[in-house]
């Protein structure tokens, strides 16, 4: 099938998300769609998959103008989109989720559903427990399930939005194999939306680069990374070089830590972090990294074991006490976890201050906020509300709100969804903190980031933490094995 996009425009108020994009996509090929954050990739794909209508422009399949009023219609025409966060229904069972929107009979036919699913999973060698609930599956498994669903639904065009975020290296390999199979054996059109140049280079035959809502370039792949980067950013950004930093006194000590939660427990964690150290936690999402971070932050409490902060036993202290002791925590959710919709930047700054007066001194607060805005290069005013900020600025605000003089900073996905330049800037800020003797413990779904930024690495798998690895003495392969649960 030949797909043509003609002069697609989509404006959100003053923002031109898509500003006259025209593209032609052929069957049997894999395309990479690249671009900085906010370049318009997601919008374009949402338009193609029927999730949003364009303000103007046409979508043509084999020269026929299509009108996708909804994703359902789009899928009916053969366009399926696999989101980074799969669009499934977590409380449903695998079967229910699979059947939702598929079967038009009133009473559900589980038998054929199971049969179809089994066929599909074996075709792509996915391993899925069909009896479990979606929320008990890993992100990779959920993606596989979505993929299976889209294919059964007759997708000819597959759009994959950051599909490798948060899945294991092995799952990634399985996924890429299936994608190739689909494109080359079954003649489907595949569009991969990604930040990760390596993945795009590895998988795609043609790259298309968006910048500020416009298509700025096309290239056959593979090609030199520099070319792609130049197309995306206009110039190659400085990669923050990680410098060796002399480590100081132990800051964080975890002794035989056990933490139990409703869904997962972590066991037998022993770990020591020194001043100035950056420690990365790798692993599939939901393998226990987050539990460890939250335990260190005082958000979860261990069943047994000890947490030492600068040699002091802080086991069982509440989050706010830990904050006072010099522990900073930034969750990944931003507006869900960390920032407050409807509150201004100034109000955020005031709330995050360690010491408060009873009455708020508005003018002083404004001054403080202004200086934070300058320091963290936030695009906004003291009286802008948090929800008015763009994603990157929200992340900057989150870091601006971390207290000064912290002993330990705990981070979840510090640069998720950010472009390379923003990521670098953020890590520069973090590295500066090391000067004060701050240790950083972070988790990321991005193995590159972990490799690039950490001094040492540990991998979580099913609640068990692997041995601690020196970054310079390990390899992506080794980590990949560990992520897959092999020692």
């Amino acid at each position: 099938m030949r797909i043509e996009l003609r002069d697609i425009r989509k404006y959100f108020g003053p923002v031109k998300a898509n500003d006259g994009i025209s593209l032609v996509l052929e069957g049997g090929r894999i395309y990479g769609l690249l671009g900085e954050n906010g370049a318009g990739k997601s919008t374009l794909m949402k338009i193609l998959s029927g999730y949003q209508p364009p303000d103007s422009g046409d979508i043509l399949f084999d020269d026929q103008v299509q009108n996708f009023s909804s994703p359902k219609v789009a899928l009916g025409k053969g366009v399926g989109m696999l989101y980074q966060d799969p669009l499934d229904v977590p409380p449903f069972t695998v079967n229910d989720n699979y059947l939702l929107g598929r079967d038009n009979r009133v009473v559900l036919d589980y038998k054929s559903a199971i049969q179809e699913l089994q066929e599909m999973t074996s075709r792509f060698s996915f391993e899925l427990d069909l009896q479990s609930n979606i929320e008990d599956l890993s992100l990779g498994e959920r993606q596989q399930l979505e993929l299976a669903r889209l294919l059964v639904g007759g997708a000819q065009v597959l759009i994959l939005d950051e599909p490798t975020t948060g899945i294991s290296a092995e799952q990634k390999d399985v996924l890429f194999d299936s994608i190739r199979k689909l494109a080359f054996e079954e003649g489907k059109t595949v569009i991969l939306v990604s930040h990760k140049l390596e993945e795009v280079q590895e998988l795609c035959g043609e790259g298309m680069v968006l910048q500020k809502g416009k298509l700025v370039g096309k290239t056959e792949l593979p090609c030199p990374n520099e070319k792609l980067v130049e197309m995306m950013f206009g110039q190659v950004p400085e990669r923050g070089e990680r410098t060796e930093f002399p480590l100081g006194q132990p800051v964080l000590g975890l002794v035989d830590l056990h933490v139990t939660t409703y869904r997962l427990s972590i066991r037998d964690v022993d770990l020591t972090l020194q001043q100035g150290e950056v420690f990365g936690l790798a692993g599939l999402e939901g393998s226990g990294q987050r539990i460890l971070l939250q335990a260190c932050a005082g958000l979860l409490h261990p069943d047994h074991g000890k947490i030492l902060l600068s040699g002091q036993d802080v086991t069982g202290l509440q989050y706010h006490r830990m904050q006072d002791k010099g522990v900073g925590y930034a969750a990944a959710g931003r507006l869900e976890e960390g920032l407050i919709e409807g509150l201004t930047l100034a109000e955020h700054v005031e709330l995050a201050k360690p010491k408060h007066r009873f009455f708020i001194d508005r003018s002083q607060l404004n001054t403080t906020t202004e200086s934070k805005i300058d320091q963290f290069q936030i695009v906004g005013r003291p009286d802008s509300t948090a929800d008015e900020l763009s994603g990157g600025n929200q992340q900057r605000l989150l870091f601006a709100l971390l207290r000064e003089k912290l002993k330990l900073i705990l981070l979840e996905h510090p640069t998720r969804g950010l472009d390379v330049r923003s990521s670098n800037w953020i890590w520069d800020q973090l590295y500066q903190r090391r000067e004060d003797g701050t240790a950083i413990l972070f988790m990321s779904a991005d193995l590159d980031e972990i490799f690039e930024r950490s001094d040492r690495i540990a991998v979580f798998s099913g609640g068990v933490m692997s041995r601690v690895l020196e970054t310079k003495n390990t390899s992506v392969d080794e980590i990949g094995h560990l992520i897959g649960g092999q020692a």
Partner: protein
Amino acid sequence: MDSSPLVLTLASIILASTPLIIAVCGEILTERSGIVNLSLDGTMLMSAMTGFVVAFETDNVWLGFLGAMGVGAFFAFIVAFGSIRLRQSQFAIGFVLTLLGDDLSAFLGQNYTRIPGPVVQHYAIPILKDIPIIGPIFFNQNVIVYFAYILVFVTWFWLFRTQPGLRLRSAGDRPEAGFARGVGINFQRYLYTIIGGGLVGVAGASYSLNIKIGWAEGLTRGFGWIALAIVIFGGWSPIRGMFGALLFGATKALATYLQRTFPEVSVVAFNAIPWVLMILVLLLVGSDFTERVITVAPKSLRRPLQRFLKISPPQALGSTFVED
């Protein structure tokens, strides 16, 4: 036929719980689609009044139920319209409707207070009614009670075993996903809010036409709130909800018995039992303690325990969904 006091009492508890069961099923449908219809208490009063007035004027019980259903659906429509189309707080609209339903039913029903009118006829199911113990408890009732049994089953089946049920639940659990698969989220929400409201209307009318026969100001006051609490206690499942309603009915019967058993305790004190129970039950299903019990339990027991104790509401409950 067995007519021991215990059997008769159980039959009475079932009868008295019927409207609650019906209202709980209605509200479960609504909340499963993602809307909280907080106006239940006012809706029930309005529909109890309407049901009686229509039945009285037409001398036809079923027209009464139909009228009540219409009123319930209309109130529910206001909630749906206000929250979906106008994106206002569902709680606020529901709460105002609660108070409005109370006053409006008192005003409109003022000329129909406590006059005798038509009631639902008793109908014992042949054969079934002769089963020892079970028969007199369950099958020596009336059509509305049987309707409630069927409704519980149908609601459960509809929610968990049918395609429309999947669509409905997807609207409440993950509207984005449902929408991506062609489910008209807001359509689902309108539909099930209105259907749910209609059922609440039936519940209201079954008070005035079946249980607390006739109309009087404030006839069903409080039952709407109890139904809302039972929905939570029942974990948004009609079958558990039914048990919740029965438990509540049993508590009230217990309060009556206790007064005779413990005459030395102040009469007034027993009236508080259902409310204390309501708090305790919500505490049981909501608190971390329950979660801890589950995690501490042996692994083999965890899943059933989880099923039994753990409550998770529809995840998009009360949120608005913008289709664009």
